[in-house]
């Protein structure tokens, strides 16, 4: 994409984007390797490595091939989706606190799936589309409540609206679960994000919509960067701010809906990843988007591997760990002397 400034040395003497991206890519590779080698089970790194080198015993082949492999792939996809969605949402709302989980997007997806299950849908087939639709509706509700236009000036109001809406949807979801214990069984673990036991078929089902969303993202990067300069400047450069926002919100809903549909709501990835990306590459959305792609999976895989090792032979839900990582970052951003507006 011509609009993405890759490779050039950044402003204020930052190291070149390509170099950072390369380093992050290397780290991601290590994380993926760790995700394949480490687990809560008896198959240790040595046996798993033997599998990767083409040998290994039957048990190890199964654990690496059928359990850790899909899990790693899903982690990478979910990480990319959440990281990019976070960066987009923060850019379009010009608010460094915007996070899909805080803005009712994940809660909308979870509520939609609970509703579908309650109405008797079979979970496997409908989940993806329903989750994405719920994410879209949730996002639209919050954004319309605070009126997109005034967001830049008041980041905290957006977060308050999102938190309120999330709480509302959360209680509605609980209500549905109380009504119907059958779907409660199915959904109780689904509403705690996790990569364990998720199916590769679900991943395949969301790939098309993720591809569309990522394509739109690349197309939107340049208008978004212009929008960061202000509404008038963007209009003067020939972009239509209203349409840009609409498309971006749609993309965010697609990304978060897909990620939530596969892995359940995973909090704070969309907050921490763009935060880290900005710290590395500066505020330009065209640069941070590139970094979010390796950073997202890096965080998800790192948290997932940790979740397997902490309480073996059981596992912690991934959502718990990302929240532990993310909450301090949220506090740090809020406590910063001046809330940076994007």
């Amino acid at each position: 994409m011509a609009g993405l400034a890759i490779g050039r040395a950044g402003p204020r003497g930052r190291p070149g984007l390509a170099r950072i991206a390369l380093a992050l890519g290397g780290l991601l590779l290590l994380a993926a390797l760790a995700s394949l080698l480490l687990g809560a089970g008896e198959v240790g790194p040595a046996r798993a490595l033997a599998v990767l080198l083409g040998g290994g015993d039957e048990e190890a082949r199964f654990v690496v091939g059928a359990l850790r492999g899909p899990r790693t792939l899903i982690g990478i996809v979910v990480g990319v989706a959440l990281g990019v969605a976070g960066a987009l949402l923060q850019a379009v709302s010009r608010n460094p606190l915007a996070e899909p989980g805080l803005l009712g997007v994940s809660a909308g997806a979870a509520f939609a799936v609970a509703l579908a299950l309650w109405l008797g849908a079979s979970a496997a087939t409908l989940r993806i589309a329903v989750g994405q639709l719920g994410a879209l509706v949730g996002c639209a509700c919050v954004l319309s409540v605070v009126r997109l236009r005034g967001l830049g000036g008041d980041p905290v109001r957006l977060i308050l609206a999102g938190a309120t809406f999330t709480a509302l949807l959360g209680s509605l979801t609980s209500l549905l679960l109380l009504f119907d214990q059958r779907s409660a069984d199915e959904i109780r673990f689904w509403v705690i994000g996790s990569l364990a036991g998720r199916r590769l078929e679900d991943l395949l089902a969301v790939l098309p919509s993720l591809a569309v969303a990522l394509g739109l993202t690349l197309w939107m990067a340049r208008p978004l960067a212009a929008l960061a300069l202000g509404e008038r400047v963007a209009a003067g450069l020939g972009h239509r701010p209203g349409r840009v926002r609409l498309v971006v919100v749609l993309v965010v809903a697609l990304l978060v809906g897909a990620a939530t549909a596969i892995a359940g709501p995973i909090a704070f990835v969309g907050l921490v990843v763009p935060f880290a990306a900005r710290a590395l590459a500066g505020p330009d959305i065209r640069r941070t988007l590139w970094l979010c792609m390796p950073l997202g999976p890096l965080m998800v895989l790192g948290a997932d591997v940790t979740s397997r090792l902490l309480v073996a032979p059981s596992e912690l839900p991934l959502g718990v760990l990302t929240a532990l990582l993310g909450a301090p970052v949220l506090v740090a951003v809020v406590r910063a002397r001046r809330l940076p507006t994007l």
Partner: protein
Amino acid sequence: MFSASHIVRRWTRRRALTLFAAALCLVLSSTAEARTLDTAHGEVEVPESPERIVTLYEGALDAALAAGIVPVGAVTTRGGDGVAGYIEAHLDALSPDARPAIVGVVRELNLEAVLAQRPDLILAAPQLSAEQYALLSRIAPTVVPATRPLAADNWQAEARLYGEALGRAAEVEAAIAELATRSAALAEALAAAGVNGSANLIRWMPQGPMVMSAQLFASGLIEAAGLEIGDAGLVREGGSHSDPLSLENLSRLDGDWLFLATLNAEGQEALDAARTSPAFARLPAVQAERVVPVDGQLWTSANGPLAAQAILDHLEAALLP
């Protein structure tokens, strides 16, 4: 699973037995006085012949029905809107018209609903909190069995206490005795049919199973039927089940038989769902087609002599070739 008429037939036979035992008991101890019971909250005096009984525990409801008494109020089974399915069958036989009013769930009692039943005796769970007890005992004499460390036969002592409170100790005793005979007979039949080996009782979830303790009520019955039940060393001391086990560790579930409990009525559906997990599909018990989907309401929530009979019915149907 098993037909209602099957239960009813069994029930009538047992009732004949218990009536006989009761008659015997009446002859022996015709000097029954206003009874004082030793409960978890000290000595409690209960009425001579209680008439409006509220049971706040599935085991108490079970024991009352086994003694031939239909409570006026009861709590729901875990994860259900009403009493457990196997209880319904007994209610159909005992009192087709009047049903116990639902007065809450075990962990969340509706005290006003209890009060509305104007009970003269309340039978509650061993886990009842002191605060709840203080309130309930102002409504009616409340009988709470002492809490014991988790063990598969705790229910017997509890059922006996409930039986005494109801003035029907002999009936409950007879039901427990009949159960011992029944499980011994089943164990013999299974041994003769060559059914043996080890077993695990689990609740399946997509992220991994929870292994149920070998000290549970149902585990004890599986053991009484001659299978060796284990928890693969995963259940903490005193816990009723493990944390969800990582899918990578499923190979620890190496029992010959796998009892798969769900809170849904659709046990087969749950089994089919579990089968889509490659980690589940390669368990030895699954490969050997030795998975028994069981009703979690009955197997992991209920207890008492009637529940035990229902579980043995299921074991017999599922295991005897």
